[in-house]
C-alpha cells in the first residue's frame, strides 16, 4: 500500500469521528461539515509528505476547529460565540469519547432529503470522500454533487434536525432508511462500473466499508448483519459476473472458481449467526438466498427447494415485482417450467409491464423446450432493459447463433 492510499484510508475512517466531535462541541452540522472537509483536504495534501501525525484525530479536530473559528471571525455578528470557542481550545490528545457514526448516518439519511441527496451527503460526511471523488464515482459533474450536498445541509437545518440519536419511536424507521441508502451506494457501484475508470472510488467497496462500520457498532442487529452479508455474498461473484469485454455472464454459466471464497465464508458466517439469533427481515432473507447460491459448487448442486422457501418468506415480508419474478424462477427449478409459466401468467397484472417480465418468460420458455417462443420474448426483453450489459446478453439470446463451444 503506498503512502497516499494509506493516508486516504485513514482519513476516511476518521472523518465521521472528527465531524461528530465538532458538531457536538459547536453545533451547526452544515458549517462543521464544511470545516471537516477542508481539514481532510489539508491532511490529504500534507500527510503524504510530512508523515502522519502522532494523533491524527487530534490534528484533524484542531485544524477543522481553527477553520470554523475563522469562519465565525469573519461573521461579525458571531463574535461572542468565537470567544466561547477560544476558551474551549482543542486538546491535542483528545479522542472522541462517543461514537458518532450511527448518529451521523441517521442525520445524513434524514427523511426530509431525497435519496440522491442522502447518498451524496452520506458519502461525504460519513465516508469522508471529497465532492470531486463522489462526482467521479457517480459519473455526474462536481457542481451537481456540490448542489446536492449544500441543498441537503440546508434542508436538514430547515427541518430543525439535531445531531442526536433519533427518538426511540423513530429508531427502526430511521435505521431502515440508513440501510436503504447503504444498499443503494453498493448497487450504484454495479450501475456505474464501466471497468475503465481507474483512480475512482469503487462505490461497491465504499458501500461494504460503511456497512461494516455500522455492523461493528451494532453487531446484534439482524438486518444490519444481513445487509453486510448480502453485500459480501453478492460482491463475491463480481469477478465471474462479466467477461473482460463486458459481456454479462448469468449465474448458471459463471466460472465459480473465480468467486471470492473469503467473502463467501465471511458472508455465510454472518448470515448463519443472524438467522439463529435475530428477528428475521428482508436483508437477511436475501443474504440467505445469496448464500445458498454461493455454496453450490456447480449450478446443478443448487438447493432450489431451500431458495424457493426463502422467496416465499421474502414475498410475505417484503413483496415486490423482483421478488415475485425471482420466486417464479425458483418455482420453475423445483416444480418445472410449465407450472412457473402458469404462475407468471397469473401474476401478470400485478407485475404491470415490469421490464423483466419478458426476460423471465423467455427463460422459462427456453427451459420448457420452446426456443422459438423464447427468442421472441428475449427480443422484447432486450428492447425494454435499462442495462447495457443485460441488453447485450438478451440480444445474444434472441439471435439465432451457433452454440458456444
Amino acid at each position, binding site marked *: 500500500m503506498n503512502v497516499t492510499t494509506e493516508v486516504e484510508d485513514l482519513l476516511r475512517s476518521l472523518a465521521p469521528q472528527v465531524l461528530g466531535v465538532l458538531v457536538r462541541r459547536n453545533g451547526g452540522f452544515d458549517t462543521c461539515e464544511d470545516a471537516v472537509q477542508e481539514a481532510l483536504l489539508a491532511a490529504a495534501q500534507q500527510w503524504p509528505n510530512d508523515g502522519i501525525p502522532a494523533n491524527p484525530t487530534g490534528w484533524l479536530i484542531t485544524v477543522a476547529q481553527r477553520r470554523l473559528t475563522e469562519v465565525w471571525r469573519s461573521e461579525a455578528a458571531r463574535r461572542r460565540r468565537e470567544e466561547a470557542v477560544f476558551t474551549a481550545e482543542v486538546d491535542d490528545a483528545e479522542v472522541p469519547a462517543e461514537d458518532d457514526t450511527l448518529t451521523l448516518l441517521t442525520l445524513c439519511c434524514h427523511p426530509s432529503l431525497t435519496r440522491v441527496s442522502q447518498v451524496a451527503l452520506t458519502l461525504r460526511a460519513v465516508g469522508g470522500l471529497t465532492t470531486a471523488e463522489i462526482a467521479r464515482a457517480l459519473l*455526474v*459533474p462536481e457542481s451537481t454533487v456540490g448542489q446536492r450536498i449544500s441543498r441537503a445541509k440546508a434542508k436538514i437545518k430547515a427541518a430543525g434536525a439535531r445531531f442526536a440519536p433519533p427518538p426511540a419511536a423513530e429508531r427502526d424507521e430511521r435505521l431502515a432508511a440508513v440501510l436503504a441508502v447503504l444498499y443503494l451506494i453498493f448497487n450504484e457501484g454495479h450501475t456505474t462500473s464501466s471497468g475503465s475508470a481507474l483512480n475512482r472510488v469503487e462505490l461497491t467497496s465504499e458501500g461494504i466499508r460503511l456497512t461494516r462500520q455500522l455492523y461493528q457498532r451494532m453487531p446484534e442487529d439482524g438486518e444490519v448483519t444481513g445487509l453486510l452479508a448480502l453485500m459480501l455474498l453478492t460482491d463475491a461473484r463480481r469477478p465471474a459476473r462479466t467477461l473482460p469485454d463486458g459481456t454479462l455472464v448469468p449465474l448458471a454459466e459463471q466460472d465459480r472458481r473465480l468467486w471470492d471464497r473469503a467473502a463467501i465464508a465471511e458472508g455465510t458466517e454472518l448470515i448463519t449467526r443472524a438467522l439463529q439469533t435475530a428477528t428475521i427481515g428482508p436483508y437477511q432473507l436475501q443474504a440467505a438466498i445469496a448464500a445458498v447460491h454461493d455454496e453450490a459448487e456447480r449450478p446443478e448442486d443448487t438447493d432450489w427447494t431451500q431458495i424457493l422457501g426463502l422467496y416465499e418468506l421474502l414475498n410475505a415480508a417484503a413483496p415486490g415485482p423482483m421478488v415475485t419474478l425471482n420466486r417464479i424462477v425458483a418455482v420453475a427449478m423445483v416444480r418445472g417450467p410449465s407450472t412457473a409459466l402458469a404462475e407468471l401468467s397469473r401474476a401478470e397484472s400485478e407485475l404491470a409491464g415490469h421490464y423483466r417480465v419478458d426476460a423471465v418468460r423467455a427463460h422459462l420458455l427456453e427451459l420448457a423446450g420452446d426456443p422459438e417462443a423464447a427468442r421472441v420474448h428475449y427480443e422484447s426483453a432486450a428492447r425494454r432493459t435499462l442495462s447495457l450489459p443485460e441488453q447485450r446478453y438478451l440480444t445474444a439470446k434472441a439471435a439465432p447463433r451457433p452454440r458456444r463451444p
Partner: protein
Amino acid sequence: MRYLILIHSNPRSRALWETLTDEQRMEFGRGYMQLTEELAASGELVVSQGLTDPALAKRVWVQDGETMSSDGPFAEVKEYLAGFYLVDCESEARALEWAAKAPDAQLGGPVEVRPILDMSTLDL
C-alpha cells in the same frame, strides 16, 4: 436514474413560433434559462445544450481507412433535435415533471424523455 430530455423541432412547433410576439419569444428564452437554473440548483442537472440549426450539420464516415465528411444541407428533415437536458433524477415521474416545464412542452411541442442505459449487472 439518468434521463435524456430531448427538445425536438417540427413543422408544427416552427409554425407556432412564427405566431409569437417578440415579448412572447423573450419569455420563451427566459423559460429555458429558468429551467436550467432550477435543474442545476436541485442537483439534478448533468448537462444541457441547445443545438445550432441543422443547416450547420456535417456528416462523417470512414471509407477505406480515410475519414470523409460532407456539408449540409441534407434532404429536408421535418423533425430534428434542437436541444437536450441530461438529468439525474430519482424516478421517471420526476424526469417527466422537469420535461413538462420546458417551454416547448408548455406550448404543446414535441419533448421526449428517454432513460439512459446503465452498466448495471444484476445476476440473471
